């Protein structure tokens, strides 16, 4: 079998099968695994169970990985952390160590999975295995979660091995190993992270929906508090047992045991059997300090100093009730168990085994005098000492939640596992409260910590594409995002990367010849039924029940406050059928709005979102008719097909609806076909348009063209408070329609002078400040510019802006400001291009 070789700070380390990175490093002689975060104190293995921060290393670029739970594999690049804290940021010695790789795009593989089980058992130790077997039934599936790589619990034995075999053979039980349950959420939803060590770091976030949950998470050992309790070489008894029995590593020659007599006696036999001398067994109250340079070399009591290279803490066992605590199940201090136990639980959640306090009998947790020294480290993660805790209580912050927030104790990687017992007892001792009165801090998921990567999962964001997407690519589209939609900003087939040049060419094509733009992203809604007209009368500012067949009307949709929510065109297709357009990205809102008001009014109407099902393109320009005429028999003359009407006919062999509308101010038609024909139609239009040098044009060009006509874009030129009056929509002034949404508010708004108004402007200079630039008048901000572009028609920079009535008079000098630069301008009333609107109606 090939040897397992990995790197530690650039040097090779050999590992045995079954080694974790920590055990392999320890076996190779590493004793200092990291330095503490604040004071740079050397730290060594302590718990070997994923419950403390001492073994954290950087593995293949991932920081803060617990090496004690990471299987050793060939090829890993492991780096130590916090060298700079220990040695000083400027220390030349720091440069000896390899710098941690910068956080970068991860190659790691993150996935999600959503599963449902009748019963989920959390914990694959003896009690968990028994619970899983007891839960199987013909009606349901059982899941068994285990955070270690194998079932059986801590140091499996013959009994557990038999149970493991039974569980693995059972078809009704699905086993998840390397799966750590970090949270229990409403509706019995469990969050679980499963790590796949087979590939370069893969993590799966399992969302498990459970009928009932059995928590069999056991109990974990925690540390004592005395001066220099954090020296390398001072370990929990369970950690020593793992080193001895799981990894066949002997962690020292001379040892001192600290703890209750029963525990020490039981531990002693393991040590002596391994050839480790036990020089003393002490109650923690007699410990003054541990001492040593970078590693423990002695334990000091008041009378004797014991030399030892291994100190074994037989610490108290803490029932792992984290998941229950997350459900706000109250935790009760049980003096009989010497532990906090979960009390009331939901009927669908039960607690078994050591997690429920079974066989947990900690005697009174004692604190030696040195527990309040500056070297007695209560919180290993944040370097919070017993002295810090005492100071905090002295300052009046004696509540456990205040101690946590003021000192940061318990807020980091171990999430209180190593510090809670000591801190609660220290707090009780100093403040004179009982343990029950001190209580615990609130537990919140995730515990243990999870990576952001696994929460995000597969980084595959939705992208919305029109039916002509590929054609735009082939034409050299430079893409922009509009929400989830991709739209061509402009086309650059030669790859010049000169936006202004490309946009000008597209602009000239539309103004002088013909252009075509893909507008499939705009929302398209069909409203049909006997109440269709009534519904539209209710939600729009115009009347639609009387709109003649064949006509198209532009209108605005307001909310109850009279604020513009959307605009679009409405076409009467039939006696009881209308076709609506909305702004890109707003169709879902408009559909919901229509459905709500239809339901509120008990209306007989069907509302269907056809956005994705239709391809629409706008062919515009003085020569647009000559292009379209090549593709259809329909009479396109203004006499037969006036502005603001629609016709249906075959275009390029496909059934199409043509709407004669004009956002860009030229004669033009919006051609709508089934999405499956969009690509075909687009290509036919380009082909037919070759004779007049027709150009496809993008969103940026359209922005310039429509700005020259002062056509607003809802959401760009209007904001969350704009009403139609201040936006210049004079037709609303009559309000002579029957009741519609916003009518009451608009009537009131009409009576009061507008606080602001949307005006056009021209800049004196040639530089183009960005959209959104504030407007300054007499040294004060009075509004902002919504759209600013260079106009080839006026050969000036033009735009629209919100100003107060005082600046709204034509000719008023105003100033745009951007990046501390002033752009003088003046207000212009007239539409910049073709004010009479003749070009639309050729």
């Amino acid at each position, binding site marked *: 079998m090939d040897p397992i070789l990995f790197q530690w700070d650039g040097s090779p380390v050999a590992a045995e099968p079954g080694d974790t990175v920590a055990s392999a490093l320890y076996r190779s002689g590493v004793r200092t695994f990291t330095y503490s975060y604040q004071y740079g104190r050397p730290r060594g293995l302590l718990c070997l169970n994923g419950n403390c921060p001492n073994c954290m290393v950087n593995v293949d670029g991932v920081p803060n990985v617990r090496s004690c739970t990471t299987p050793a594999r060939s090829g890993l690049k492991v780096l130590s952390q916090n060298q700079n804290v220990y040695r000083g940021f400027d220390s030349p010695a720091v440069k000896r160590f390899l710098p941690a790789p910068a956080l970068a795009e991860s190659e790691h593989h993150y996935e999600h999975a959503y599963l449902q089980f009748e019963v989920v058992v959390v914990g694959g130790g003896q009690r968990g295995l028994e619970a899983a077997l007891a839960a199987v039934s013909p009606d349901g599936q059982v899941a068994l979660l285990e955070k270690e790589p194998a079932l059986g619990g801590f140091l499996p034995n013959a009994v557990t091995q038999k149970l493991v075999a039974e569980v693995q053979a059972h078809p009704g039980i699905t086993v998840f190993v390397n799966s750590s349950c970090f949270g229990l959420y409403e509706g019995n939803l469990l969050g679980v992270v499963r790590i796949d060590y087979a590939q370069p770091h893969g993590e799966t976030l399992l969302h498990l929906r459970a009928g009932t949950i059995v928590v069999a998470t056991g109990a974990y050992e925690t540390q004592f508090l005395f001066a220099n309790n954090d020296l390398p070489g001072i370990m929990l008894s369970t950690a020593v047992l793992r080193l001895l029995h799981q990894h066949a590593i002997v962690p020292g020659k001379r040892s001192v045991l600290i703890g209750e007599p029963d525990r020490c006696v039981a531990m002693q036999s393991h040590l002596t059997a391994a050839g480790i001398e036990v020089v003393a067994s002490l109650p923690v109250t007699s410990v003054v300090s541990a001492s040593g340079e970078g590693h423990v070399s002695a334990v000091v009591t008041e009378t004797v100093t014991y030399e030892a290279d291994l100190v074994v803490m037989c610490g108290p066992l803490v029932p792992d009730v984290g998941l229950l605590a997350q459900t706000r199940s109250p935790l009760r201090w049980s003096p009989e168990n010497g532990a906090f136990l979960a009390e009331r639980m939901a009927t669908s959640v039960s607690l078994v085994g050591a997690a429920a306090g079974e066989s947990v009998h900690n005697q009174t947790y004692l604190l030696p005098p040195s527990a309040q020294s500056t070297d007695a480290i209560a919180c290993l993660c944040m370097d919070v000492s017993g002295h810090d805790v005492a100071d905090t209580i002295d300052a009046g912050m004696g509540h456990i939640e205040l101690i946590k927030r003021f000192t940061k104790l318990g807020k980091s990687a171990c999430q209180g596992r190593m510090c809670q017992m000591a801190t609660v007892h220290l707090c009780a001792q100093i403040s004179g409260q009982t343990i029950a009165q001190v209580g615990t801090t609130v537990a919140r998921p995730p515990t243990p910590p999870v990576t952001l990567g696994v929460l995000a999962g597969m980084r595959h964001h939705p992208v919305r594409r029109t039916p002509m997407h590929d054609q735009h690519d082939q034409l050299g589209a430079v893409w922009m995002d509009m929400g989830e939609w991709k739209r061509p900003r402009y086309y650059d087939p030669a790859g010049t990367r000169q936006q202004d040049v490309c946009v000008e060419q597209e602009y000239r094509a539309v103004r002088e010849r013909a252009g075509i733009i893909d507008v499939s992203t705009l929302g398209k809604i069909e409203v049909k039924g006997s109440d269709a007209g009534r519904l539209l009368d209710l939600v729009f500012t115009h009347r639609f029940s009387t709109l003649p067949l064949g006509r198209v009307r532009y209108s605005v949709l307001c909310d109850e406050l009279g604020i513009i929510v959307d605009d679009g065109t409405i076409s009467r297709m039939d006696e009881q059928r209308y076709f609506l357009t909305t702004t890109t990205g707003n169709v879902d809102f408009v559909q919901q709005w229509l459905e709500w008001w239809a339901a509120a009014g008990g209306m007989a109407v069907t509302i269907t979102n056809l956005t994705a099902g239709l391809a629409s393109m706008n062919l515009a320009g003085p020569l647009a008719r000559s292009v379209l005429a090549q593709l259809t028999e329909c009479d396109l003359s203004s006499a037969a097909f006036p502005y603001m009407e629609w016709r249906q006919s075959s275009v390029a062999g496909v059934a199409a609806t043509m709407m004669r509308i004009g956002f860009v101010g030229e004669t033009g038609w919006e051609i709508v076909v089934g999405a499956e024909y969009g690509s075909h139609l687009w290509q*036919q239009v380009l082909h037919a348009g070759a004779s007049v040098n027709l150009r496809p044009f993008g969103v940026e060009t359209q922005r310039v063209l429509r700005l020259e006509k002062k056509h607003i874009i809802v959401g760009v030129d209007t904001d969350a408070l704009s009403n139609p009056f201040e936006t210049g929509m004079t037709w609303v002034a009559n309000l002579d329609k029957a009741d519609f949404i916003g009518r009451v508010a608009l009537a009131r708004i009409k009576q009061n002078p507008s606080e602001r108004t949307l005006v056009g402007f021209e800049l004196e200079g040639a530089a183009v400040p960005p959209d959104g630039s504030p407007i300054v008048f007499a040294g004060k901000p009075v509004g902002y510019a919504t759209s600013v572009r260079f106009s080839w028609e006026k050969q000036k920079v033009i735009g629209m802006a919100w100003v107060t009535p005082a600046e709204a008079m034509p000719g008023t000098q105003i100033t745009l400001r951007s990046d501390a630069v002033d752009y003088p301008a003046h207000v212009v009333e007239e539409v910049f291009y073709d004010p009479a609107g003749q070009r639309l109606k050729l």
Partner: protein
Amino acid sequence: MEAQRQSALHRCHLEAQAQLQTFFGWQLPAWYTYPSSELEAVRASVGISDASYLFKLDLRGEAGALQVAAPARLWQLTPAHALITSPLPIGFAASASVTNVTSVFSAILLAGPKSREVLQKLTTLNVREDAMAEGAGRQTRLAHVNATILRSDCAGLPGFLILNTRDVAQHVWEALLHAGREFGARPFGMVAQQHWMGTA
């Protein structure tokens, strides 16, 4: 010139170097590699196929009286909302409550023994055998977009028709292939699809 109907997944087929032919008036992949090996892979594990050509009707309200004959199928999504799918167009009486949504939705057939496992990586919907019977239809979210999932088994093996609005079809196709990668998921063409459905 005869207008070509193109699926929203056209680009995916081109990139996968599919052999395109006309089926039911649509440009669709006949195969990507060999129909027989594509079919074998589906039966062994899982594959995806473009079924956008399906004629689709949206029914609202008490149009439940509508009867359909094979090969058309009726899918009841809620008591007041149903879908009809059919390989060929079917006649229907135009009314306020019936809408032809053939163009609106793309349809992807996810088929094979591992299809559930693929779905379970992309949606919270419970697609277990006992939670979603053959013939059931559900509206849900899949890969962060709205989807209608219809369980359509063939020859005893699980299959799901996944309907999405056309604009996100390519996104869903890619998400299915990504999620299915660990099961060897591959696209399969119309020839294999018709064999799968027993209509070849």
